Every structure is written in C-alpha cells, then in structure tokens.
C-alpha cells in the first residue's frame, strides 16, 4: 500500500490542530481520495496536548488510525518531543519555528515554518497559525491540492473568517515555497 | 359510577380496583365530570400514568388513549407524546410518590418547560400499593410501615414546589371538596400550559389504620376538619395553622 500517506498534526488545545486536520481530510475527500481522520485531546478544551491524524489512500482504508507518520507537523515543543521519532525515514517534519527547537540529529527531513510569527505579525491574528502551517504543508508535500483546501475552507469556515483564512493559507504557501527552495 | 358517566368508561371494565374508603373513586368521578362538562372528545384524550394506586385511575378504566408507564416516568413519556402530537389533550394522573419522589426531577423540569400537560396528583401521603411506607408527602410525626415512631422529616408542599418551578396553573383540593375540585379540573383542562392539581385522597388501608383513623369516615372527617381556604387561614395562630391544609388556587 505504497500510495497510503499518513499525516500527524500536533500541538496543544486552542491552536486549531483539529480544524487544520478537518480541512486537510475534507480536501482529500473532495479530490476523490479515501481518507480517515481521528483526533485526540485531553479533557480540557484548551491548553492540553492535542493531535489530529489523517490517513490518505487511493483504496479503502482497513485500519483507520495512523501507524507511522509520513508527515509530522509539530506546533509545540511538547508535541515535537512526543512524536519526532515516529516518522518514516523518507518522511518529513514541519515544525513551528519560534515554538520548537528541532533535534538536528534526526535522520529525517525537517523544515521550520514561522507559522505563529507570520500569523501574529503579518495577519495580526494569532488564531490562524494553523492555517499558515497548512499552507506550508500543502506547498512542501503536495498531499492535497491548494484548490481542494480552498473549497474545504469555503465549506467549514464561517463566512466572516473565510477571507482571513484564505489569506493565511496563501501566506503559508509562500512560506513553503521559500523554505523548500 | 353513575350511568351518565358510562360512556367515558372502557368497554369491558367492571369495578374499580380501589380499597373500601379510598378517595380515588371520588377523584375518578370528578375527572370524568369535568371532561363531560367541557364536552371533551375522548378520542383526543391521552391519559398517562406511572406506577401506584392512582396510576390505575385512568388505566384501563378511561375510554381514551391510556399510557401506563414506569414508576416515576409518566411526565417524561407524556412530554414525548404531547410534543410530537400537540392535538392530543394530555392528562397525567398519578400518585404523590410517583410524581414527586421517584419522578421528582421530571416534575420540576416539566413545570419549568410549561408544556401543556394537565397533571393530577392524587396525594394520599403514603406508598399505598407497596404496603404503607413513608412518602415525601407524609406529614412529620405520622406513622408508616417504615417510620413506626413517626416520620422524622418534613413533607414537600407540592403546590409551592411546582409553582416555584414554573407551573402556570396550580391548585389543591381534597376529595371532600368535589364541586371545587371539578371546577379546578375544568380550569386545568382549559388552561394552556403546565397545570398541576394536588388532590388529597384518603388511604384508610395504609395511612388511616397506622394513624388512629381506622375507619374510612374518620379520614373523611379529618380532611373536612383540616382543609381550609387561604381566607380562613388568615389570622390563625401558628400552632393551629400547622394542623391545617390550605386548599384553593395558587397560580395564576
């Protein structure tokens, strides 16, 4: 099942990890892929550890949970340290530069994305770091198409926040282009 | 049961199951008279009851739809039926233990929602069917099969309870006041919203014989003596008042 790709988004509650996972999975379904998505978080709604795992395949997925990540996104140091060793050698880690100090000894491709910084400074809103990261993820991995993400944003984000989220997504894609170059 | 009320009685029903001296027969008659005076269509009447002697007042006797439910849950079942078919006139008839003890949570929430349910609570101040155990309505000091030395706890004032919870028609009468009771039942049926009538009904078998009122007429005499109106209660000394039961309309 080489066509299977497993993505783990991680951080803490309140960072929009679950929403980013929803958009990613929704985009996959819109492209005709088979997708499974599951989340886990602590009992409190804000602040505790949080992850969203999405599996993509061209065929029906038997075991729906992530077994080993092709892609890890870490939005916090805690999340990074918990999951950094559960990534395939051919995989990739995207971490939030400024929130995570990466372990350079890992034998995996790692890219720092200034998601929170861009969100705060360029978009004047700390709530869209997740979407900036999503943009970088889509640009650097091609896991789904940008068009599908835009459709997913139109479906799941309340109208009054759509422009902001689209802007954040495109900022993230730009960032992805730069760091991948 | 007088012949005039026969059309409200289900075919095949012969006698009521109540003990001699039980007040539930009078209450049954009063409910049917109220329905008759308002010319209610029994095909649109739904009678819901829980478990206990009073729950047998409508089931199987009344010739409309009847839903004899679980102990304490009559109001929850009634809520579902009324919400789905608002054309039904839904009357809940059950006892004090059923409605206010095991079903107490449903009672306050049904009152809070002010859904159009007509609740008739037959209060005999005891668990009759199960053998005379103390109830949440047994007055302090009275004896039951589980309080041989007298009930150590205070009873609920059911009318105050449901009024505080939001019921919009609230009244209390005794079966010794049948004319006033019928008038109240008619008002409750016409009222749109949660109506609650507490009806004091003697239980000589389980309550009377443990509390020096062995004979049915002694319980009737006791109710006649103790039930007074709010006006009559005014100016009574606290000690005197503590023995009395105030009847009348409390809401609106």
């Amino acid at each position, binding site marked *: 099942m080489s066509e299977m790709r497993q993505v783990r988004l991680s951080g803490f509650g309140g960072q929009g990890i679950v929403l980013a996972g929803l958009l990613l999975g929704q985009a996959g379904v819109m492209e005709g892929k088979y997708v499974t998505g599951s989340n886990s978080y602590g009992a409190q709604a804000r602040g505790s550890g949080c992850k969203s795992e999405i599996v993509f395949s061209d065929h029906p997925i038997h075991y*729906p949970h992530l077994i080993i990540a092709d892609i890890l996104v870490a939005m916090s140091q805690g999340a990074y340290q918990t999951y950094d060793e559960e990534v395939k050698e051919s995989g990739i880690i995207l971490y939030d530069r400024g929130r995570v100090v990466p372990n350079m000894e890992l034998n995996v491709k790692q890219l720092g994305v200034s998601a929170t910084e861009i969100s705060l400074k360029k978009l004047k809103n700390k709530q869209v770091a997740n979407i900036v990261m999503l943009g970088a993820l889509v640009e650097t991995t091609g896991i789904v198409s940008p068009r599908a993400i835009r459709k997913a944003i139109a479906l799941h984000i309340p109208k009054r926040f759509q422009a902001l989220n689209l802007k954040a997504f495109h900022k993230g894609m730009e960032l992805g282009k730069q760091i991948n170059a | 049961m007088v012949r005039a009320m026969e059309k409200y009685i289900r075919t095949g029903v012969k006698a009521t199951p109540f003990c001699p001296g039980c007040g539930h027969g009078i209450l049954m008659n009063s409910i049917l008279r109220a329905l008759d005076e308002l010319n209610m269509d029994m095909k649109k009447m739904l009678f819901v009851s829980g478990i206990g002697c009073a729950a047998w007042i409508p089931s199987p006797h009344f010739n409309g739809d009847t839903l*004899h439910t679980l102990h304490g849950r009559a109001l929850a079942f009634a809520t579902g039926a009324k919400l789905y078919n608002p054309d039904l006139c839904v009357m809940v008839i059950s006892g004090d233990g059923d409605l206010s003890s095991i079903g107490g949570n449903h009672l306050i929430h049904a009152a809070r929602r002010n859904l159009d349910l007509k609740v008739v609570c037959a209060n005999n101040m005891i668990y009759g069917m199960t053998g005379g155990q103390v109830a949440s309505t047994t007055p302090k000091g009275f004896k039951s099969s589980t309080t041989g030395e007298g009930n150590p706890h205070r009873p609920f004032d059911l009318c105050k309870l449901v009024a505080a919870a939001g019921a919009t028609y609230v009244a209390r009468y005794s079966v010794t006041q049948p004319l006033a009771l019928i008038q109240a039942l008619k008002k409750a049926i016409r009222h749109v919203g949660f109506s609650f009538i507490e009806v004091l009904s003697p239980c000589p078998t389980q309550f009377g014989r443990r509390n020096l009122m062995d004979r049915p007429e002694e319980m009737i005499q006791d109710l006649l003596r103790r039930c007074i109106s709010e006006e009559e209660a005014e100016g009574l000394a606290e000690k005197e008042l503590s023995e009395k039961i105030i009847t009348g309309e409390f809401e609106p």
Partner: protein
Amino acid sequence: MISRWIKSPFPKGVYYFSGNEAAAEGAIAAGCRFYAGYPITPSSEIMERMAVRLKEVGGIFIQMEDEIASISAIIGASWAGAKAMTATSGPGFSLMQESIGYAAFTETPCVIIDVQRAGPCTGQATRVGSGDIMQAKWGSHGDYQVIALSPWSVQEMYDLTLRGFNLSERYRVPTLVMSDEAIGHLRENLSIHSKVEIWDRKKKRGRPPFGTEEEGGVPPMPAFGEGERLLVTGSTHDAFGFRKTDDPEVHSRLVDRINQKILRNRTEITETEDYYLEDSERAMIAYGFTARTSLYVVHQLRKEGRKIGMLRLKTLWPFPEEAVTTLGKRVKKVIVPEMNLGQVAGEVKKFCACEVISLHQTNGEVIGPETIMEMLKKI
C-alpha cells in the same frame, strides 16, 4: 408489509463526516422526526446535529433533564406516531435500561445509539471501550429481546442507523446501534445515495395491538389520537392491552411471543461478512472498530501466505449463531479480539466446536495491529 423507496433528505454525494454526524443523518434518512437526549461524551455530537437537522426537516427535538427522561420521551413520542431516537454512552445507557425493557415489553419501535466508552462507571469518558455488549442484551430485567447492530465505519454509522430504524419498525422492538468512541469520532468518506429504502410500522384498525396468531408475527401498531382508544401498559397484558397481572398463561404467552418474534426471524435480521474463510485454518471473529484492525492484520498475514480469515459480526443481537457454528466446524481455532474482557468470546464459545481464544484489552485504547500480531504469534 413492504418497504418503500424515498428521495434522500440529504443531497447525494461523498462527504467527510464523523461517525456521530453520519448516524444523525442516517436517522433523518430513515424518517426519524423525534429526538430526546441528554449530553454525554462521546455521543453528544449526535444530539447536536439532530437539534439542527430536525428543525430543518420539521421534526421535534428536545434536550431532557436526564437519560431516563430522554428514552421515556421517545417511547411516548413513538406511541404518538413518531420514528424516534436517543443517543448516549455507558452511564446514560445504564440509566436507560428500565425503559428499554418497557419498550421491549410494550413492543415500541425506537432506536438507541450507544457510543461506548471505557467503563465501568464514569471510567474514561473520552476513551474507547466495548464493554456494553452484554448489557445491551441483558441490561433490563426479565426475558426479552432487542436488536443490536455493530457499525465498523462512518458509512455504517449511517447505514446501520437507517437499518436500525427499519428493523425497529418491522419488528416493533427497541434497536440498539452499539457504536464506540473510535467510530463515533472517526472522520471518513460517507456516500449518500439519491434514494433510501425505508420501512414503516403497519397499522390495521380494530386489530389487537399486542397479539397475533401468526408464529413470529408482529401485531399492528396504531398511534394515540387515531381513535383506537389504546391501552398501553408495561404490566403483563392481553392482546388488547388489558392488565393481566396474575394470569400465568397470559404472562408466559406474552414473554414467549416478544422473544420468538425476534428469534424466529433471526436469519432475516442478522448480518455477517466473511473474509478469506474458504481455506482458512484459523479465523478471527470481530466486530466494530476492532474488526478494522483484525482485517488489516489478516491482509498482512495473507501476504505472508498464512491461512487466516475473518468473520465480521454486523449484528450482535440476536446473536448470529448459525454463521458462528458453521465457522467453528470449518476452522481449527477462532480468535475473538475485543475491547472488553471477552464478552462476545463467551458467546462464541457457546456455538463454536473448535478452540476459542479470547484476546482482550481494556485500557481505553483501540486494539492496534501490532497488539493483535503479537498475540497471534503467541498462539
């Protein structure tokens, strides 16, 4: 009694829904127009979606004061003519048991979704388990039957909730959809077709609503307000609903009938799926989420040339004993992985002639492929 095809109330398409959302949509498709519920993790999303959807389709939604009130309200609504549902999880499911017995004894169609979590007691509210399987069958007192289905995907949360309503209406029996946290919260592709097949309860004026001469038959069910002057009671009753609380014959006939109408129709009700069983020497019997893991493992082992297969139980109650018995004759070993201490394994042992191994885990986590692989190696 026959089914009919209706236009799907939700537009045809492929969606990325959670299991809980899909269950709500399956209920709406089946014609559910009454929902009463009480919040409890991990089932609350079903109630939240029903609150929105019932408003859109002209149904009734109410949040009740507790789970006992919720199931009681849906039984009341069902007798008023509604297809009605509630959803809950372990602690709420425990509270509902007395009323489930009432629904079984009064032959009231209704659907209860139990999104199981790690019990007993409050346990781990956000974690998975499947410890309510035996409770689903035996939770209320006395001898009665229910139908219990076990979805393994988001698609089946939709399909089996829809089927649950159809079975409930056909057989006048409470139907339980025994989901779990992992399936309820999983998001996955959900295909909704343009048409759905639905069954409605049968009505016949003047006929007894609680009796039939037909073996395994289901009596007609009128609604309140139709002029039938119904007599519904949870006490022992005759064919017209009259209480007969000290007639031994009426009691045994009624208890027998409400059991037989399900058991005699078992082959019609139960569904199972076979995977690689033709030449298997060992087989897993699995249900719910764990069947996903099991199938994954079976595929891996088949690639290595191992002769292993799987029987999936889509219906848990009535128990698909014919399929299990047949399998027990065909293979040497049966392995039953589940997120409890062997509840279904015990049932499998009743019907399997071969060796039955219970493989269980109760730590609030799903059973992963590695766990099953390791356990299989030890056998």
